[in-house]
């Protein structure tokens, strides 16, 4: 149940970031085509050549403008995650980089907004790295990820004293696998509620 909700939330955040970055429906449609195989392709042995399918506009969270409502939902979800798990949604980084990626910004915007509303709350930002490279370099890299995350949040007027940092380097992977997929999940900043 929890798991399902988390996936929904992740999908939602992904959609939201597409909306915020791309801002138009065509991009969403294009992404759908590349992911969704046509009926013909599902049946082995039948090759009809290129097929096309019109995708309904139902899921257009983006265009209909329920973004405000969804933000509220997201905030609720964030609050629930904080209350039940003491955890906010992580943000992710490129290999050996600590700059805030575009798709992380909407998440940070939410967190900043939520922090502004809940002034009694302080958070600790954990910086993490994937396993490649040395332990020491990765602790330093995680530190810089935590710092750049904090710096980004302070631009919203959050007091730095409410935002402490710690780096775990490569020591606490979210995924212990050794693939680009696993590494991508490990290059992250996590948010920990430490007081209220």
């Amino acid at each position, binding site marked *: 149940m929890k798991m399902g909700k988390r996936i929904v939330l992740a999908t939602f955040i992904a959609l939201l970031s597409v909306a915020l970055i791309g801002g138009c429906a065509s991009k969403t449609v294009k992404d759908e085509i590349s992911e969704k195989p046509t009926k013909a392709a599902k049946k082995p042995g039948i090759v009809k050549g290129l097929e096309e399918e019109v995708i309904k506009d139902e899921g257009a969270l983006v265009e209909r403008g329920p973004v405000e409502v969804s933000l509220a939902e997201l905030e609720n979800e964030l609050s629930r995650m904080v209350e039940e798990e003491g955890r906010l949604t992580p943000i992710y980084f490129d290999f*050996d980089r600590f700059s805030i990626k575009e798709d992380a910004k909407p998440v940070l915007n939410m967190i900043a907004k939520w922090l502004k509303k809940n002034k009694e709350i302080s958070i600790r930002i954990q910086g993490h790295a994937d396993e490649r*490279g*040395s*332990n020491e*370099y990765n*602790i*330093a890299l995680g*530190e*810089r990820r935590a710092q750049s995350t904090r710096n980004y949040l302070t631009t919203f007027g959050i007091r730095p004293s409410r935002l402490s940092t710690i780096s775990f380097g490569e020591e606490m992977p979210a995924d212990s696998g050794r693939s680009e997929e696993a590494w991508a999940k490990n290059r992250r900043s996590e948010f920990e509620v430490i007081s209220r």
Partner: protein
Amino acid sequence: MKYLSYLLIFLSLFLHSLAESKVYIDINAPRGRKLPIAIQEFKNLGEMPSKILADDLRDVLISDLSFSGLFDLIDMSAYLEDIELSGLTASETDFRDWRIIGSQTLIKGGIRADNNGIIRVDIRLFDVILEKVLIGKRYFGITSDIRKIAHRFADEVIKNLTGERGIFATRLLFVSDISGSKEIYISDYDGQNIKRITNNGSINLSPQWSPDSSSIIYTSYKDKQPYLYMRKLSTGTEKKILDKPGINIGGRWSPDGKRIAATLSLEGNPELYILDIETRSLKRLTKNYGIDVSPSWSPDGKKLAFVSDIAGNPHIYVINSDGAGLRRLTYKGKYNTTPAWSPRGNLITFAGFNDGRFNIYTIRADGRGLKMLTSKGNNDTPSWSPDGRYIAFSSSRRNGRNNWDTYIMRADGTNQKKIISDMGNSMSPSWSPYFR
């Protein structure tokens, strides 16, 4: 009278040095000829059986001497001398039997064990050509000392034949996650005799020796943040030596034992600092917008090699210990890390990323002569033996999970030998200085 005794002491020292001046092996000659050596089975000199001890002693001696790459061990099946009819002294040895099989040096010995586990071990090294004893040693101990005795005698052999100190009695610190958390362990140089040092269930990293080998420093999360700790090995007493806000990692003792270089982030991004242990004063070494980690002192203590990403990717740089003279050492590769300055001063070893893998490299301190020493799996955290002839490192060349093992090799990359496996992941080996 007094002057006469001084003169006698001087004369005896002079004669002694003359007697020892023959160098059997030129240790620094490239592709120097290997010295043929025979190691006879060790005799039982007491009433208690000592065959297992005798075999252990011989095995460890052989393992040590062959790892050095300086010897050509003659196989036991070729030996002619009857072990029962010959003795352990020069007069009881028929050196012709050893010359015929091509040997130039010979090790013989015996063990006497009593029923309390107390042992006495006699070992001699002979020059087969000159028919004389080069080293004669008697060791008293308990049965569990047998490996230590073998390492000590192997060191004597190296010292006698090359004129340089051996490293077989040295030890390694390393990190293992076998207990479920990363803890610090210690072993002999050959990975045997493993003992656990930390036991706090937290994350413990980057163990490093004090230059007098009495203490270690390491980074631990046991007080929640990554702080630097110093621990005396004999007593286990410990103190936190750096607990500044932010990270306190990668401490390295200066060769004079008075300072510790480390990475701190108390003023913002991770920079190198030098802590004066006595005065507790902290001096900032680097000032840039990048990451600066993993310092390694030059043997004269005047320079440090370290990792910085100021050019966009992690590379090896060198800086004077007063903060001046910054220069970049490596240009090849996308990710170079964990430098270690050789005790001889001429080389720096590091782990570098090329073609999808990390390998161990050496480069001269002037930035020339880049050499790749490994080629299998991923390889990390090289550490020099105190004589600068060998490198310990960790490698994930074995298949499967938890596949980081500890290896040692000669400094030219030959004779790579796995010495620690079955310890989960064993990582970050740190080779001790000489003991005593």
